[in-house]
């Protein structure tokens, strides 16, 4: 018996639960030189905005212990070029395409998703409520009412599933998740990066021109797992786990805490073929442990007490 690693989110099937995270896989072109993108459960494209953005000046990434900081500043080609070139490029791969969008206000999200609605290659949209590197967005990520309103307005213009991507930089991520669920979100994805900083002690300069940035990578995995665990107890919609995943064992941990799929981000920078390896190893783990389908694992952590 070969174990079943396909999953379903909001009625859409994924051949496996491994997606690449927004901002860590571009629009897919570069990774396609390394492996066939059809091996992915899905690809979440770099956040797009209405207008193209250059992003912040250099340096906008820095190394950290078991992770990194970034303040790219939502550099992207803008929605027009995205639809014309990037979505078209992705036509040829047999994988789900999730288009991540961000704006400065609710209407930006609505306009972007309305545009994308006409392009069915965008299987889903993911609303980036949580980028800590631009003023844009961060407000929605910390304001339950605004998040709910934005989701519900997007739902009116986008006919396929809508994911709300949440920030960990809040007192209660579960509250924001519940608000998104109430707004009609089909799923939530979490977490985006943690606000962090680093300084060069020789120049006294921050290591990022944005002064602060977002921390990602294995360093944040425990925080992401705790967030998934708490949100799983609070909502009924599926959760896509993100944060520091670097191997199959991390994926299992996220499933046990409540995830129905995961995204791999920063690990791609060090092991760009990690998704391919993880898919293989997930199958091995399930076989070895006689688990028929990975879907059985969601939320199955055996908590104490």
């Amino acid at each position, binding site marked *: 018996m070969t174990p079943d690693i396909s999953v379903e989110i909001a009625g859409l099937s994924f051949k496996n639960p491994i997606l690449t995270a927004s*901002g*860590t*896989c*571009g629009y897919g072109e*570069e*990774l396609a*030189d*390394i*492996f066939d993108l059809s091996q992915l459960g899905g690809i979440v494209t770099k956040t797009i905005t209405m207008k193209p953005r*250059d*992003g912040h*000046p*250099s*340096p*906008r*990434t820095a*190394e*950290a*212990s*078991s*992770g*990194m900081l*970034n303040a*790219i500043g939502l*550099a992207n080609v803008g929605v027009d070029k995205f639809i014309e070139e990037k979505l078209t490029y992705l036509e040829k791969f047999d994988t789900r395409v999730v288009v991540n969008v961000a704006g400065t206000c609710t209407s930006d999200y609505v306009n972007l998703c309305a545009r994308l609605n006409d392009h069915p290659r965008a299987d889903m949209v993911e609303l980036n409520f949580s980028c800590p590197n631009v003023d844009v967005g961060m407000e929605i990520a910390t304001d339950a009412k605004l998040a709910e309103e934005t989701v519900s307005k997007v739902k009116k213009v986008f006919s396929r599933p809508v994911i709300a991507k949440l920030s960990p930089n809040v007192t209660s991520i579960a509250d924001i998740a519940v608000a998104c669920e109430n707004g009609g979100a089909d799923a939530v994805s979490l977490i985006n990066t943690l606000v962090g900083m680093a300084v060069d002690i020789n120049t006294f300069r921050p290591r990022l021109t944005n002064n602060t940035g977002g921390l990602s*990578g294995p360093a944040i995995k425990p925080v992401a797992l705790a967030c998934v665990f708490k949100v799983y107890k609070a909502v009924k919609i599926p959760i896509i786990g993100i944060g520091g995943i670097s191997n199959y064992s991390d994926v299992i941990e996220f499933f046990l805490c409540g995830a129905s799929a995961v995204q791999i981000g920063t690990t*791609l*920078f*060090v*092991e*760009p*073929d990690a998704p391919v390896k993880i898919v293989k190893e997930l199958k091995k783990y399930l076989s070895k442990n006689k688990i028929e389908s990975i879907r059985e694992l969601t939320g199955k952590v055996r908590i104490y007490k």
Partner: protein
Amino acid sequence: MSKIVIENVSVVKKKKLTPDCFAITVAPFSKVKSIRPGQFVHLQIPNCNLFFRRAFSVYSVNTEEKSLEILFKVFGRGTAAMASLKKGNRLSLLGPLGSSFRKPKKNELIGLIAGGVGFPPIYYLSRFLIENGFDPKKLFFFYGGRGRSDLIELARLKKLGLNSVLVTEDGSLGIKGLVTSAVEKWFLENKGSKVVYSCGPEGMLKAVDQLAQQYNIPGQISLEAPMPCGVGICLGCIKPLKSGGYTRVCKEGPIFEIGEIIL
């Protein structure tokens, strides 16, 4: 088939060139044949807890042994850990990465300008050109450094049989001065059409870039930037373009045209 691969390679040779400069050869790498001068590899260095890989220009390749050689100077934590690698140690190699030098036109005089650890890609290019039928007499290798200890691998350079011009700031070897002065002299003394290729410290590259533009000489430079991913997906290794916006050093580069980048 994948253009870029990740493979575990072993250290098959290690040479200490100066107290802080080493050459190591690693093998087997399945893609040695497709490596072009100017391209680099991204190494995961064992025995140090660094999160990112580190980028190194390819210095030479041996297609039979499926080996490639890199030359490095101890700079920070990663290169310090590399200096303590031993024969047989294994490490993960991602490559080949980045753009490569374009070939000169057949009639051009070729200026090859290297400074410090900018030597490996320029040496590799020189050797590649000669092996591909370019006349060593038309190759002018300008090699600059602060002092004589910066000019490494001179014996190996000599073997190529090209014209070499050594320049040191303190005059301890070759001409005293900046390498760009020697290049300018060459520009002035040679009438034929010329092309330049350069790699070295950013200050030097800036001077070369300006000089070449001033004399209207085409050419290319090889840039460096801290590189989280090396494959174009993190957008961390950017340089500003003269034409506006940014470009990625790891993907569009590391080889750029003279005058293309704001240095």
